[in-house]
């Protein structure tokens, strides 16, 4: 007699998994990483490798020590390490970024409860950690200005690894939106708010549209854990990111830092936005 499996519904699910989503994001960052290695040479390669090793290493150590299930293969630690390397200057010593990557995953992610539970984006937290600890080393060699179209393709004034080629970040990010790995609401709201506000305030857009800004828009702001889940909340979150970015960028003149600090602040506001934008169920609510 044949036996049948009994299980609760649904009996058919979409193939998408956390692993797909994370490795998809890693794959989307590979082109810009390659461009950075081409432009900055071994320094960039060293930083990327050190950062990923630090992130994955600390995750391995923590999960072994606390006897958790090993999750390094889900790609989240790799993604955090890679993202951190892309928002740091290539002149940063490799050991520093190694330590920062350990901070990102060890403190930023696991101390808060692991994947899905952190309040601040781990890579951002580590970037702030680096900026506070070794401020001198975190100063980029130059500030990118994308004054012509060729700068979008290949930015010779890049300060951070991610600034090398804004268009690569944009293309891969948009591709992720197209395959629905990233939801469109946050990036669209964030991008439009920033550009419109910058134009209104009279800041040149060439200062705004840099690789780091696009990384922030497409990859950091859209981190699902640190953004609200409600539909309206996501749009408000995007607008808030934009407003904060321009506020910082307008008064300090540095849109790189503006982007990253704005995102950190917006992370803190995300839960508040979420609980205040709870949707009404369809059909309304019956009187109590």
């Amino acid at each position, binding site marked *: 007699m*044949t036996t*049948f*499996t*009994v*299980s*609760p*519904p*649904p*009996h*058919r*699910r*979409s193939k*998408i*998994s*956390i692993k*797909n*989503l994370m490795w998809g994001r890693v794959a989307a960052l590979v082109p810009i990483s390659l461009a950075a290695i081409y432009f900055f040479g071994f320094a960039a390669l060293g930083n990327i490798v050190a950062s990923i090793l630090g992130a994955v290493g600390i995750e391995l150590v923590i999960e072994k020590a606390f006897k958790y299930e090993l999750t390094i293969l889900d790609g989240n630690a790799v993604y955090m390490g890679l993202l951190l390397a892309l928002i740091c200057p290539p002149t940063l010593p490799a050991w520093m970024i190694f330590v920062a990557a350990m901070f990102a995953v060890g403190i930023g992610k696991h101390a808060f409860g*692991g*994947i*899905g*539970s952190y309040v601040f984006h781990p890579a951002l937290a580590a970037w702030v950690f680096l900026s506070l600890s070794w401020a001198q080393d975190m100063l980029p060699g130059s500030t990118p200005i994308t004054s012509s179209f060729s700068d979008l393709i290949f930015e010779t004034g890049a300060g951070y690894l991610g600034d090398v080629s804004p268009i690569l970040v944009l293309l891969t990010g948009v591709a992720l939106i197209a395959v629905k790995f990233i*939801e469109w609401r946050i990036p669209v709201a964030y991008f439009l708010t920033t550009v419109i506000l910058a134009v209104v305030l009279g800041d040149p857009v060439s200062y705004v549209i840099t690789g780091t800004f696009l990384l922030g828009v497409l990859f950091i702001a859209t981190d*699902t*854990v640190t*953004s609200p*889940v*409600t*539909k309206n909340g*996501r749009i408000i979150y995007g607008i808030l990111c934009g407003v904060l970015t321009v506020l910082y960028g307008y008064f300090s003149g540095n849109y790189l830092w503006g982007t990253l600090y704005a995102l950190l602040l917006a992370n803190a506001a995300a839960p508040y936005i979420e609980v205040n934008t*709870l*949707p*009404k*169920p*369809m*059909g*309304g*609510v*019956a009187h109590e």
Partner: protein
Amino acid sequence: MSVIKLDKLPEKVILPLKQHDGIACAPLVKKGEEVIIGQKIGDCEGSDLAYIHSPYCGTVEAIEEMPSPMGKRILSVVLAPSECAESVDFVPEKDAPPSRLLEIIREAGVVEYYEKPTYLALKPGKRIDTLIMNATFPLITNAYLDSLDKVLEGFRLMLEAGGISRGAIVIRADDKESIKAFKNAKVGGKPLAVAPLIGKRHADYYFEDTDDEIIVLAGGKITYTPTMMNLLSADVMGRKIPLGYEPADVHVAVCGVKSAKAVYDAVYEGKPYLENVITVLGAVNRPGSVLVSFGTPIKDVIEACGGYKGEPGKVIVNGSRVGVALYTDEAPVSKNTTGVIVQTKDEVLRDVSSACIHCARCVDVCPMNLLPGRIAVMADQGMYEKCGEYHALSCIECGDCAAVCPAKKHLVQLIRFSKLQLLQMCAEAEPAEVTE
């Protein structure tokens, strides 16, 4: 489209004594007794009932708890069918007045696809102005196209029985075959109009323009499953049903294609509800629609469809989204069965759920505009009041959220659990208020 018919008698027939959402029937027959086709074998008393009739001729082998298509074991009459074709005298009553029509429908034990007895659906004791026929299950609708005039006549009889002035038949916009058939069909000598449902043009818009009693609406690409009453009413009539209310509260009654045909049979041929069409899909050699008498084990239905293709892993009744996976294929087809899906061993999901990454996919797909992930987390932690604040009770359990979840969380079960707890809390709270 051809409908597969069973060409041989099953070894045994299992007739569950409860085939609707309501009161279970008491058996009218004893072990060893002979029954004939159409004989009433289950009787019940109360306001919410559906009599059970035997679709087969045979001997009662046992009256005991047997597997049912709902997954549980329930009291059933087990028959050993025989070849005889003896049946009770079917008395057609063509010119019955509305009250008698309702009586006939009740006597025939007709049950809607959402498990409510049809006579109750038609006359729920509230003012009903429109009867919607949900014909959005393409395979089932197509299977009834050959006898479309009977279905339409049955639908007209239902309108008459319920005293309802307008009838709207809803079909899927991508169901070309049905649209074509409905366009060529006639009701009372007049051809039917097939109108699209676009934007704010709901059924009322078309009823204003026409004197017709019945119109056909082709809307969307949604199959409205039994739990999606709210959506059906909102999409077709533009009337949303608030939480805790039923379609009747917004003056809408809903029926299915099968019950319309059953009503025709009951009135014009005097036959009780004995058989209907179910769909058999997935890993079988000849998937399609099958005309099955109630009580036939699923095993025999699958045999009629050419048997299993490969090694079967799961037999799912009533859809892969919300259906029940059976532990045995001996379970019978009953009045609330709409389809069977067979999955092979390889297709059976073996996902392990992990932490939520708040990707909001569940929020984006939820047709009720809820936050399924959040409700599930709070249900998991036992914060049921909080689930209530997040409108857990509005959930229609369509399963869309769980299907898209990348963390493979059991969202539907968690939400369903929180709903149960909430309802229990309400039930406990109410008497306390009275004593105060």
